[in-house]
């Protein structure tokens, strides 16, 4: 018990002092996960809207697959991306294995289904309500999809934040494709795993506290955005 208390105190000191090593890890984490969530949103939100509004063969199967992919195990994604990017793999030429770029690729694949599947659900619910009115006003599928994306924007922000939380908190994928190289690809989750196994509890705990705070802050932000939007825009 005493050891944990000591470690917590030390962790607090590291955070309060903006310890250089700690900050480097935190910033790399944010950079990788933010990039991944931006790419996943740029692709996933229009995809979700298209599936919600479109009628095409195989639509139901696509929805089921997308929903299933929300539960993708990060280590499996890591493994697949590793195989693609390794020297012998089809994309080995790129030479990005064990770089932050590879980690962005893996996390993007991990959260794209989350963003697409959840936004599809939200937009389709809105579509049920809007469909006749938009059709009556003469909106085609494309313009309906854009209108729905805009009209559900506050729910979509929540989804994007959920995606970011998932990316920032996963360890399996970035560990495999990043390699947890000190100063290059070491992020919060991989550092926690490593430092814990090494017995360096203060750094692990410090990172844990930051990670938890980040997830908490994200959820608070998502809640606030939704609430205030509901109050202001109905």
């Amino acid at each position, binding site marked *: 018990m005493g050891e944990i208390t000591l470690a917590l105190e030390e962790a607090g000191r590291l955070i309060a002092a903006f310890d250089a090593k700690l900050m480097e890890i935190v910033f790399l984490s944010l950079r990788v996960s933010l990039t991944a969530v931006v790419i996943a949103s740029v692709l996933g939100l229009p995809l979700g809207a298209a599936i919600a509004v479109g009628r095409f063969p195989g639509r139901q199967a696509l929805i089921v697959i997308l929903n299933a992919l929300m539960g993708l195990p990060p280590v499996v994604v890591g493994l697949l991306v590793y195989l693609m990017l390794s020297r012998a793999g089809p994309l080995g030429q790129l030479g990005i294995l064990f770089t932050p770029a590879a980690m962005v690729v893996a996390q993007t694949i991990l959260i794209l289904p989350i963003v697409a599947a959840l936004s599809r659900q939200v937009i389709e619910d809105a579509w049920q309500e*809007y469909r006749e*009115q938009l059709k009556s006003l003469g*909106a085609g599928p494309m313009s309906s999809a854009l209108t729905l994306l805009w009209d559900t924007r506050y729910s979509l922000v929540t989804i994007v934040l959920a995606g970011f939380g998932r990316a920032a908190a996963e360890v399996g994928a970035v560990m495999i494709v990043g390699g947890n190289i000190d100063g290059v690809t070491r992020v919060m989750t991989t550092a926690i795993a490593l430092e814990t196994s090494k017995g360096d509890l203060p750094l692990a705990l410090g990172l844990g506290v930051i990670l938890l705070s980040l997830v908490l802050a994200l959820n608070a932000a998502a809640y606030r955005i939704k609430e205030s939007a509901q109050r*202001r825009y*109905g």
Partner: protein
Amino acid sequence: MLPLVLDQVSFAVNGKTIIDRVSMEITEGPRTVILGPNGAGKSVLMRLCHGLFAPTSGTISWRGAANGRRRQAMVFQRPVLLRRSALDNIVYGLKLAGFSPRERELRARDVLEAVGLVNVAERPARVLSGGEQQKLALARAWALGPEVLFLDEPTANLDPGATRDVETIIGQIRAGGTKIVMATHNLGQAKRLGDEILYLNQGRLVEQTPVDRFFTKPASAEAEAFIRGELPWN
């Protein structure tokens, strides 16, 4: 584009007939009221006329000359407003109809003025009261300058004051030369706003009669029973 001619139009969902071989002609002059009990098929008939549904069999055709732009509009029982300001809701419809940005703004301000919503122009549409929302929906349709305006029980969810306002606005729209086709189950409203009655029961068009004749000497026993049944509350 009028007259609108329906020839033996039927509409069925999952084998259940909702509109049963309706033939009729909607002409330019009189205000047409589609009257009938709940479940008679009034809303569905209106959606068929407006083009939201395609008939299962039979034909619906606009016989008059069309002049390019979409010249019909519809207001629903429950208004569907977008999550943006009252003004922008109207601008949205005008944009889809192909009006220039300058014209959109001018027309939108004009109709807001006409329906008495200028003071809430910048307010989010969805936080307006039920009556204001329906007036806004009417304004959005009116701004398009439709030749025909379909109204599906536009006052069914409103209090007497808002109902009066909406009926006044309908009168104004009519005065501007727009053909009114309205569904209602309210006999008082049918009398006030109708010139001819299309009486619908169980998906069949029972009679098409001028309003005074309908209320004094209905041709069918069903219509007579409907009028009698309603009288105590009229």
